[in-house]
């Protein structure tokens, strides 16, 4: 059941990205170009998503199980450290270079875009490099850091 709801959530997520214009890199770059001819549409995408999301997270509150009876896996980290800031900085630079973030990258892959394929392969390579660096860092430690 959890796999079916995950598939459904991914599907709705992807349809939302396409409808919103978020899967169109030129539109994302037009949003990021605040000193040029600025297209503010994507601010409304974030606004709409957060408006609905806030209700859901308020409903979830401090439940220990989901409505399917699964354990809740919400992030517990509180520290604002160098990893968070520098990682987000690198992500933002990459996002500004191509106008593509991870969700839209997978939608572009599904749409059969050759640019999307190149981006996704490079992104997976980047994630793989992270894993290798993390594993070599955590040698001798009992547990790896958990990710959101």
């Amino acid at each position, binding site marked *: 059941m959890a*796999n079916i709801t*995950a598939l459904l*959530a991914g*599907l*709705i*997520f*992807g*349809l*939302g*990205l*396409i409808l*919103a*214009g978020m*899967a*169109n890199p*030129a*539109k994302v770059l037009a949003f990021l170009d605040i000193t*040029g*001819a600025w*297209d503010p*549409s994507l601010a409304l995408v974030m*606004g*709409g*998503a957060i408006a*609905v*999301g*806030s*209700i*859901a997270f308020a*409903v979830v509150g401090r439940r220990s*199980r989901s409505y399917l009876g*699964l354990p809740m896996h919400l992030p517990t*980290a509180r520290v*604002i450290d160098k990893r968070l*800031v520098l*990682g*987000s900085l*690198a*992500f933002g630079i990459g*996002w*500004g*270079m*191509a106008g*593509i*973030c*991870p*969700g839209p990258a*997978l*939608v572009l892959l*599904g749409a059969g875009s050759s640019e*999307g394929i*190149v981006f996704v392969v*490079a992104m997976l*390579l*980047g*994630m793989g*490099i992270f*894993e290798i660096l993390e594993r070599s860092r955590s040698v001798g430690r009992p547990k790896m850091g958990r*990710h*959101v």
Partner: protein
Amino acid sequence: MLIDWSHFTPWSALAGGMGIGIAAALFVLLNGRIAGISGIVGGLFRVQTGDMGWRIAFVAGLVAAPLLWQLFHRLPTFQIDTGYGMLALAGLMVGIGTRYGSGCTSGHGVCGMSRLSPRSIVATLVFMGAGFVTVYLIRHVFGG
């Protein structure tokens, strides 16, 4: 600041955004998890954790979305003017950056902001700021 009204699409942006919000809501209410794409994909590299099923299902849904869309409607244009070398470099930075930063536009920008997580608010401000500066430099300083 000059708003490009001819390309401003408030209604589809708002509706699409709400669709993304509904997906994130379903996922946390039913699966008890954050709909953060970089975390879901990045977790695929940790086979030993034994939670591959729902990750693969979520990614399959995302990849299948344009195919489902096409059954009912023509896909909108996805315009990419970035060259392959730059795309590869960008993809690499997005992959490494989102993993070190523990999230991307969905995990931090949508879910984290909805939960008012201080970490996510900082992350979102940093990647949005970096995105603005990068586009400014590429288009208005180094570009033509």
